[in-house]
């Protein structure tokens, strides 16, 4: 039983990411984009072995569903590179579990995506997703802390 619990705890980041991606619903979780929260958290704030590779696959899947060729995948790689080469900000020790960094990450992505469409609908949609992901980042991370204990 303990082994099972241990296994579940260890595999939790992968499971929750896959769950968030799989439970895609239009408007609330289009293309499983909520998975970006855990992708970011377990890649930068609380790094886990092999998770970056898994994150790349998830980003690729999100991109494929969104019909955005490798957009979030490139964004992820870009952020990973920047994070790896710099020593100024230690993402593992930032306040609020890296909420602001996460907001920067997705904010930059959605800002670029705003230019993909010329209508106000696209702008509002991106704004909505930015707010929604930022808000949900907190409870999702809180859930992780609870399970880790």
């Amino acid at each position, binding site marked *: 039983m303990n082994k099972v619990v241990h296994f579940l705890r260890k595999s939790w980041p992968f499971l929750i990411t*896959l*769950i968030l991606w*799989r439970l895609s619903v239009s408007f609330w979780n289009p293309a499983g984009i909520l998975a970006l929260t855990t992708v970011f958290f377990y890649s930068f704030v609380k790094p886990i072995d092999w998770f970056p590779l898994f994150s790349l696959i998830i980003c690729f*899947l999100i991109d*494929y569903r969104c019909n955005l*060729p490798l957009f979030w995948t*490139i964004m992820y790689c870009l952020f990973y590179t920047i994070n*790896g080469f710099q020593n100024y900000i230690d993402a593992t020790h930032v306040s609020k579990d890296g909420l602001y960094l996460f907001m920067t990450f997705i904010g930059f992505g959605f800002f670029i995506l705003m230019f993909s469409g010329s209508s106000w609908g696209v702008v509002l949609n991106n704004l909505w997703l930015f707010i929604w992901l930022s808000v949900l980042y907190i409870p999702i991370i809180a859930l992780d802390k609870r399970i880790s204990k």
Partner: protein
Amino acid sequence: MNIDFFAVKVIRMTKDKLSYKLTKILKSVLAAVAVPVFIIYIMIAKPDYTIMNSLAHIVLPVAHFVGSVITWPIRVIGQGAAWIRETSKIRLENKELRVKLDEALSNQHTCKIAIEENQKLEKEIDIKHASPFKTVIADIQFDDSVFHHNTFLINRGRKSGLERGMVVVSFDNRLVGTIIDCGSEFCRVRSLIDANTNIAVRITGSDISGFLQGNGKNKSFINFFSDPQFVGRSGLSVVTSNISGILPSGIYIGDMKDEKQVDVLRPNQLSRVMVLKYNNSDSYK
């Protein structure tokens, strides 16, 4: 520190170790290399993205399957909630549809009545057109329905060309009565059961004539047969005669029920009649 994870012995690196830092830099370099590679690929592969799509054809089903296995309890709950919501919605729709059904049935009854009325009117118009006389169709007005209808009103009058003395018949050309009074938009008709009715009639298939009189109590009798020896019997048909010059001859009145009584039409058996435009000079207008 050794941990037993996925049954593989892994030596975890600490942040202080050089190997950790090198690994981190190496990973970053790989990621940094991946960025231009991906960008170049997008620029080259556009718009087909053959490699990307091929890769997705493998990765997506696998991820979808694994995700489906993991999330089945959540999806079951979600589907249950959706089912409850759908059921609730269906119930509301059902209520609305029942109301609409009731309205539709009500409309159907109205339509049915309209169709039947239409058929009746068509039939009446056909009869009217088939009639050799100039006729006027009129509705019977039973404002005095609590009383015996010895006389009754019809909703056509002088404006329709009706006059006193004209003959009122049913749509099967059976005598109903004669007009005794005519207003501009109505006429009073004396029925055959009225006590003042006294019209010349003839037994069909013979030259025997007589006078039909009502008793004011829903019955009519023939009196004063032209042949004193004649004895009436059930089944003989009676038609109008022009002896007195009041009515046109040959209009069917009814069959005899016994020696004297004739089965005539009563106003309460009708709702609409035809008025034959006939004048006292025995000619139709």
